[in-house]
C-alpha cells in the first residue's frame, strides 16, 4: 500500500484515481545522485530503426529486429511491427514492453469498436486512441510509433511521439537509427511510387539503420498494406546478417558432433533399435493377472 492510500483510508477520504506520478520525482532524484551511473540498466529498449512510406496503392512499413538492454543485444530477431487491425499495423520504438502493450491495448479497443460500429477501423481512430493514452502518461510510456494503414480515406502513415504529438506524413522514420534511415528517404523518396520501388526504398532505409546505427541490427521486416485490403506481412524479408555460414566455417572438435558408427563394435548381439524408436524403458511391465 502506498503512503497516500494509508493516509486516505485512515481519514476516510476517497482514494485519488488516475496514474500516480509520485515515484517519477523520486526516480529522477535517484538518477541525480552520485554513483547513479553504476545502477544497472533494466529496461529492455528496442534501440531501433522503423520506417513507414506511402505509395500509390497503399503503405509499406519496415523495421529492424534487434532489441537491446543497454549495450547488450537482448534479442536478435524480435518483431517490431505490431498488429492493430486487419487494415493497420504499427511499428514501435522505445521501451519494448511499452510498445508491445500499448499496441495490444489499442488493438483490443479497435476490435470492440468494430463490433459496435460494424465497420472497418480507421487509421485516424487508432492514432487518436494511441496519442490520448500517451499524452495522459506524459511521456513516461516510452513508445515512439509509426502507424500505417489503409481505410476509407486512403493510405496514410502517422508518426506518434512518446509525449503524444502526432504528424501525418508521406514518409517517416523513428528510433535511434532514424537519422540514417531518413538520410536514405530524403535522398530517394518520390511521390506516387510503385509497390516495388516503395519496398526497395524501405529495405534500403532499414539497411542504413542496421549497418550505421549500433542500436539496430539483424534482419529487416516489411509489411505492405494495400488499398484493396490485402496485407503482406513479410517477416525477415531481408537477412543480411546470416551467421550460419560463419558458424559452419568454425572447425570444432569431432567430440561435439558424434555421428552413429564412431565407436567400433566389438562383437556380441547387436541390439537394433526398434523402428518406432521405443525401448523397454518406455513401457511399464506389469504382472499379468490371467495365467
Amino acid at each position, binding site marked *: 500500500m502506498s503512503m497516500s492510500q494509508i493516509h486516505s483510508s485512515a481519514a476516510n477520504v476517497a482514494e485519488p484515481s488516475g496514474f500516480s506520478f509520485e515515484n517519477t520525482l523520486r526516480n529522477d532524484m535517484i538518477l541525480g545522485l552520485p554513483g547513479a551511473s553504476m545502477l544497472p540498466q533494466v529496461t529492455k529498449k528496442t534501440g531501433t530503426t522503423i520506417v513507414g512510406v506511402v505509395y500509390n496503392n497503399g503503405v509499406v512499413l519496415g523495421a529492424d529486429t534487434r532489441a537491446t538492454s543497454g549495450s547488450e543485444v537482448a534479442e536478435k530477431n524480435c518483431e517490431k511491427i505490431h498488429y492493430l487491425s486487419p487494415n493497420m499495423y504499427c511499428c514501435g520504438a522505445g521501451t519494448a514492453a511499452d510498445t508491445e502493450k500499448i499496441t495490444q491495448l489499442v488493438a483490443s479497443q479497435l476490435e470492440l469498436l468494430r463490433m459496435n460500429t460494424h465497420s472497418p477501423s480507421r487509421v485516424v481512430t487508432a492514432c487518436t486512441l494511441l496519442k490520448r493514452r500517451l499524452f495522459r502518461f506524459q511521456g513516461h510510456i516510452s513508445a515512439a510509433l509509426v502507424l500505417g494503414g489503409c*481505410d476509407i480515406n486512403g493510405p496514410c502513415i502517422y508518426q506518434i511521439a512518446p509525449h503524444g504529438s502526432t504528424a501525418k506524413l*508521406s514518409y517517416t522514420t523513428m528510433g535511434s537509427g532514424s537519422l540514417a534511415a531518413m*538520410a536514405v528517404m530524403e535522398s530517394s523518396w518520390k511521390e506516387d511510387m510503385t509497390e516495388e520501388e516503395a519496398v526497395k526504398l524501405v529495405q534500403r532505409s532499414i539497411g542504413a539503420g542496421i549497418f550505421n546505427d549500433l542500436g539496430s541490427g539483424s534482419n529487416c521486416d516489411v509489411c505492405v498494406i494495400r488499398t484493396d485490403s490485402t496485407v503482406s506481412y513479410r517477416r525477415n524479408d531481408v537477412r543480411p546478417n546470416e551467421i550460419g555460414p560463419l558458424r559452419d566455417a568454425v572447425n570444432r572438435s569431432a567430440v561435439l558432433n558424434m555421428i552413429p558408427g564412431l565407436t567400433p563394435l566389438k562383437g556380441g548381439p547387436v541390439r537394433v533399435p526398434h523402428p518406432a524408436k521405443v525401448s523397454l524403458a518406455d513401457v511399464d511391465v506389469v504382472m499379468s493377472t490371467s495365467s
Partner: protein
Amino acid sequence: MSKQHTTRPITTGTSVVGLVYDGGVLLAADTLLSYGSMAKSFNTPRMVSIDERILLGASGEYSDFQEVVQKVKALALEQKTQSMESLYEDRPLSAKSLWNYLRAVMYQKRSKFNPFWNDVVVAGYENGSSFLGVVDKLGTTLQENCVATGFGAYLAMPLLREQYRPDLSEGEARALLEDCMKVLFYRDCRASARIQLAKVTADGCIISEPYELDQSTGWNAPSMIRPVGDLDGDGGW
C-alpha cells in the same frame, strides 16, 4: 593567474563532408556561421587551402578553427623558409604530416582541459595517391575514404557508405556530395543551402565560390503541399 577553459562552443559551423575519388579528394561544407540558434553569417568559408596543396576544413567553434589555420600557415611558412633542408630543395608540408601535427596539438590542448572545439578535416594528394583524414577535439585521428563531421556523421555517412566506390569519377563524387549536403540542409537545423565545394588533385587545390543548392524539387510534392488538418480528409494531423 587564473586560466579559462573552453566549456562549450559559441560561434559554430556545422558538418564538413568529404570523399576520395579517382584522381583526388573532394570536400563540401556549407557557409553558415551559427551563434546558437541565430544565423550570424551566411558567407563564411569553412575550408581553406594551405600552400595551395592541402585542404583544411573544420566544424565546431569557428574561432578555434581560425587559430588552428593561423598556426598551420605559420608552420608551413617556417618549414618552407627556415628549415635547413629548404636551402637546398623544395620540401613542402605533406597532408599526412600536417594531420599528425594537428593530432599532437589537439591532444595536448585536451589534456589540459582546454580543447580546440573542432573536428578538422585534412585532405591532400601526394606520392600519386589521395589522403583524407580527420582529427577531433580529443586528438582522435581517422584516415578514411569517406568522412563527415558533426551532424554529417549521422546523416551523410550512411549515404556515403552505401554509394562509395573507389573508382568514382569527379562528376559522380560531386553529385554524391551535393546529395549529402541537400539531406543535411533538410534535416540539420544549423545547416544552410549555400555550400562550397573544394577539390585537391595532383594539380593542387581549388575551392569553389559559395553557391546555392538546387531546391526546385524539394518541397513541391503534392502530398507535402496538401493540407492535412481539414475535415475533407480524415481530420487527423
